[in-house]
């Protein structure tokens, strides 16, 4: 019984180490090819369009409601304890440091991380990845690196839009439903505003962009078994990217704000 438990535990540990090692190797190879990205910048710009511009409407839509609900929740908790002139401060800090970067990353992980895994997975099972290799083109340089660079650049850009629109959403709710003037709310936002918060949030989103792209590529490249395999890879990519986003969020926050 104990022997079997140890064996199962050992197999799981070996599997985890193998996965972690393979993912790390792919990430290192993808990063190492970044200097070559300008040779084929069209590939990167196409990914930026898909990852950034095409994701913008969804990010803006979710951000408006994120800002709105954070204003409602903060006002509920403040009532009777904290003056409402600090509502903008609380909402602004929460959005810029945490909600903007993390929720944008989770939305993009669902949309783009899944798309990367599905696209590369389909390419793998239809032998398009093999075809690239037979044409003496490295799939990591050709497919993964443009997606990584795109993620690293576009996630912070999307997060800036998200921050702005979330604060607008909170402002709207504050004016029309909480009965605070725009002046009071925006003064609150400015009150304890610190550039470190903004850059800390953007640094998080930079890492989140890298995670979404590399996890999508990793699961895409190791897809096998046809449509079922593509479906599995897509699910795994979204789940792993979301988990890694939340773990790295804690680690980066602890380093920057701890």
């Amino acid at each position, binding site marked *: 019984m104990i022997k079997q438990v140890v064996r199962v535990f050992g197999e799981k540990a070996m599997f985890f180490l193998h996965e972690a090692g393979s993912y790390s190797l792919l990430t290192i190879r993808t990063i190492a090819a970044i200097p070559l990205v300008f040779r084929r910048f069209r590939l990167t710009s196409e990914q930026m369009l898909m990852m950034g511009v095409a994701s913008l409407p969804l990010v803006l839509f979710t951000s408006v409601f994120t800002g709105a609900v954070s204003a409602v929740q903060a006002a509920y908790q403040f009532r009777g304890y904290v003056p409402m002139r600090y509502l903008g401060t609380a909402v602004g800090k929460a959005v810029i440091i945490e909600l903007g970067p993390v929720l944008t990353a989770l939305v993009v992980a669902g949309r783009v991380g899944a798309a990367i895994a599905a696209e590369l997975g389909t*390419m793998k099972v*239809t*032998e*398009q990845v093999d*075809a690239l*290799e*037979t*044409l*003496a083109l*490295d799939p990591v340089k050709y497919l993964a690196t443009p997606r990584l660079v795109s993620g690293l650049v576009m996630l912070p850009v999307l997060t800036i839009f998200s921050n702005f629109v979330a604060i607008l959403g909170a402002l709207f709710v504050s004016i029309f439903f909480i009965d605070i003037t725009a002046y009071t709310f925006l003064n609150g936002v400015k009150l304890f505003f610190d550039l470190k918060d903004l850059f800390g949030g953007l640094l998080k989103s930079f890492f989140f962009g890298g995670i979404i792209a590399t996890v999508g590529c990793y699961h895409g490249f190791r897809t096998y078994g046809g449509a079922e395999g593509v479906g599995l890879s897509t699910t795994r990519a979204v789940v792993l990217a979301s988990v890694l986003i939340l773990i790295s969020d804690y680690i980066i926050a602890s380093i920057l704000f701890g």
Partner: protein
Amino acid sequence: MIQATTLNAGQAVAESAIRIVNLHKRLNGKPVLNGVDLVINRGETLTIIGRSGEGKSVLLKHIIGLMKPDSGSVYIDGIDITRISNKELAEVRRRFGMLFQGAALFDSMTVDENVGIGLREHTDMAEEKIRAIVKEKLAQVGLFNVETVKPAELSGGMKKRVGLARAIAMDPEIVLYDEPTTGLDPINADAINNLILHLKNSLKITSIAVTHDMVSAYKISDRIAMLYGGRIIYSGTPEEIRNCDNPIVQQFINGQARGPITDGDNNPGNG
């Protein structure tokens, strides 16, 4: 009758473009290639036949370095590609063209981009010249005015032709065909066979095809080799293979449901 070619690593074969020596590969713990020895001479068309799942495509992928063997060697003009770096392998691959079973065209690219990808990535040719070459290669495979079309808009036969145009776009010395006629109607299949013959005669390339379509194998091959039980059990000209007395080969080429293959006779040395 020519029995399966067995070679030692050091044996020199002046005419050979490709030599496969004692190749072994296991997939998911199951032996797929179990000591394959094969020589492909320069300029010849060799067809590897065998049942589905016998390891024909796996063998083809070893020849172009898409898979690494557990043991054994694949020599391309004397270079053992199983023991070279990825960079060196990329150089060797530039001498190859490959037509995949499902054509493996890049969905996101047009026909022009698919056929011209190697030229655009590996040469400094002017765009006009690349477009002219793409047009010429498409004409060689019988396609006209499809440059701006995406693969999804093409029929199966047209996809194979575009795949073939892409395979020959860089003027390769060796072309690999993975099930070139699978999934095509007999007329389209014959058209692909004619194209393979035309390319062989006009470009003098070395060709290796894997197929279980015997009509195609007889038509395009200078030599046919049969893969069974992870080894090449017989190799000869189409005429020789038709007349050979190996019961395994005879069962396969005549498409008989009963015989040593299906009766569980798994002794590849028989014959």
